[in-house]
């Protein structure tokens, strides 16, 4: 179990700043998941930790040891690649033992380490096979086994499940969590799949445009995102955002108004930069919206445009004009509503929609920081 510390990591490609002063401290035994949109720098950051990419400035410490300039093989890391990167000409056992062989360890030690890893990953019967004779899931396990064999201080995973089909991905997700619990090792995991992030991480690191937006436990990030980007990035379907105007500002509370939604009051943090007349963004998660029977209890109304039945939940895309979501990613409907169970709705049905203002978020200022009062989990 080892700690990992990143201090002011910078990486440029030509004029492009891929990593902009990344700071992060990973505690021993943590499972850190780095998420972010493509191009946010998460893979570059992982490769920098591995030493496969040379950073321009900043420091990197593993267990307090400065490894910023160390060769990848000398850092005490092991990496699992997206494509698995198994050597096609080596058997499973040879693949798994390659790192130790490079370190010129004695044969018996290599065999023992490979045997142990194979047992953990249920690969004992496959040791003499070549990668091409294995299924996708088995190859994935060999890649993980190759990392385990080296008993590294930090495990690095680069989107390791993205090449698997959905069922296998769920299974491997569970296996990886179990493995983490069993080994108690420090792991850094990069993914673009927020389900993986939410289910596996001790803490999630949200990256955007080469910077860390927020670090925290999955539930914290989900309930209390620091800004609109994180709020929009975590959660599927995505949070609904509406543009609004501040009409009243008091200590700890503001009133907002938006076309189609009327005026309502929200609790906010003490030091908001907001003044009357400012524009801000209201965020409401699709699951915070509910359907009510009549117009009296409703905040707004709309018409169902598309209804997706997913079994235990139903997602409704509704047209709630004049209310309009900003940055709607479906293009269909303006508001997304996430309902539990099967909701019997016809396309075109008129909907009366309500929500609890305490569940809504308010984002404002230049960086669209979260200004609504923290939610209790």
């Amino acid at each position, binding site marked *: 179990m080892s700690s990992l510390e990143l201090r002011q990591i910078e990486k440029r490609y030509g004029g492009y700043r891929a990593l902009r002063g990344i700071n992060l401290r990973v505690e021993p035994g943590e499972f850190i998941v780095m998420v972010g949109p493509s191009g946010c720098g998460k893979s570059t950051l992982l490769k920098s930790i591995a030493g496969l990419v040379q950073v321009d400035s900043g420091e990197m410490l593993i267990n307090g040891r400065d490894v910023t300039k160390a*060769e990848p093989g000398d850092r005490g890391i092991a990496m699992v690649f*997206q494509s698995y990167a198994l050597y096609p000409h080596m058997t499973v056992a040879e693949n798994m033992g390659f790192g130790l062989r490079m*370190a010129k360890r004695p044969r018996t030690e290599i065999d023992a380490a490979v045997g142990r890893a194979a047992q953990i990953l249920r690969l004992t019967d496959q040791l003499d096979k070549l990668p091409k004779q294995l299924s996708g899931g088995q190859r994935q396990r060999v890649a993980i086994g190759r990392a385990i064999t080296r008993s590294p201080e930090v495990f690095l995973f680069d989107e390791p499940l993205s090449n698997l089909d959905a069922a296998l991905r769920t299974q491997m997700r569970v296996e990886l969590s179990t493995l983490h619990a069993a080994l108690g090792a420090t792991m850094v995991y990069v993914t673009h799949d927020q389900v993986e992030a939410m289910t596996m991480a001790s803490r999630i690191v949200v990256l955007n445009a080469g910077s860390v937006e927020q670090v925290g436990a999955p539930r914290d990030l989900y309930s209390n995102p620091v800004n609109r980007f994180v709020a929009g990035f975590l959660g599927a379907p995505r949070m609904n955002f509406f543009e609004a105007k501040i009409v009243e500002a008091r200590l700890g509370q503001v009133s907002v108004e938006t076309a189609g939604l009327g005026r309502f009051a929200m609790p906010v943090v003490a030091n908001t930069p907001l003044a009357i007349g400012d524009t801000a963004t209201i965020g409401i998660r699709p699951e915070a919206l509910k359907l009510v029977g009549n117009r009296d209890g409703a905040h707004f109304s709309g018409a169902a445009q598309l209804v997706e039945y997913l079994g235990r939940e139903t997602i409704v895309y509704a047209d709630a004009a004049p209310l309009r979501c900003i940055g709607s990613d479906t293009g269909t409907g303006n508001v997304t509503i996430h309902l539990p169970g099967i909701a019997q709705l016809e396309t075109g049905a008129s909907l009366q929609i309500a929500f609890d203002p305490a569940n809504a978020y308010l984002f404002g200022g230049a960086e669209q920081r979260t200004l609504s009062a923290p939610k209790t989990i």
Partner: protein
Amino acid sequence: MYPRPIPPTARTERRLYLVLVIAILVVWLAPLFAIILTSFRSSADVANGNLWGWPTQFNLIDNYTGVFSRTPMAQYFLNSLLITVPSVIGVLVLSTLSGFVLAKYRFRGNMALFAVFVGGNFMPAQIMMIPVRDLMVRLGLYDTTFALIIFHVAFQTGFATLFMRNFVAALPDELFEAARAEGASPAQILRHVVFPLVRPAFAALAILTFTFIWNDYFWAVVLTISDTVKPVTAGLANLRGQYVSEWNIISAATMIVAVPPVVMFFLMQRHFIAGLTMGAVKG
């Protein structure tokens, strides 16, 4: 597929097609048949102009043993092997090293270096003839097999580097990153990752460079004069002067020059074609 495949059910069409292809092939290879046929004939037939009728006697064995006993062809053949085999090995080694570096290391001038290797390969031989000949004279290697080996290794390294670079570049980067992450040094990556993975390229490159070097004529006449050093190509040209009218002997000698690359080609056809067309088809 284009042209549209002739369906297996169209028996007659298939047969007609095969007859047509074979007819064209016969015309295509007629010059070669002429030489093969002549290499079977007796000197009497050749002298009497009986070149296309049925041979009065088959002199297959006599002609070929004649080439070896009356001319230095055996010596030329050995020389060719002594030049070609070490050259091919040298080319494989050098180009694997340089191709690997050009494919997987980014450095300033990488592309320029690549361009020099590729471009040098298309230079007319005459532009380097005088200095190369002069260099070999000064090194005391003129008229030795070493002169040809050194030149061939140098020249073929251009094409071979292009070849190996493209082959290694097509291997996934993650394999090399994985090896680095596991602590393998560049030399270890070369030995444990590159060498095992480029074996198919080795085969293709070996057969191609073998053919190029075996068939070289220009450098053979520029860098050698003695029969003890000359390869078959230069040797054949010599015999042409000596055995002007003995076309049966010349034909047999020609066959001896031609056969090794043809045999190699048929043995390793897939690799040869893959090697030759690499780069031409992709992209």
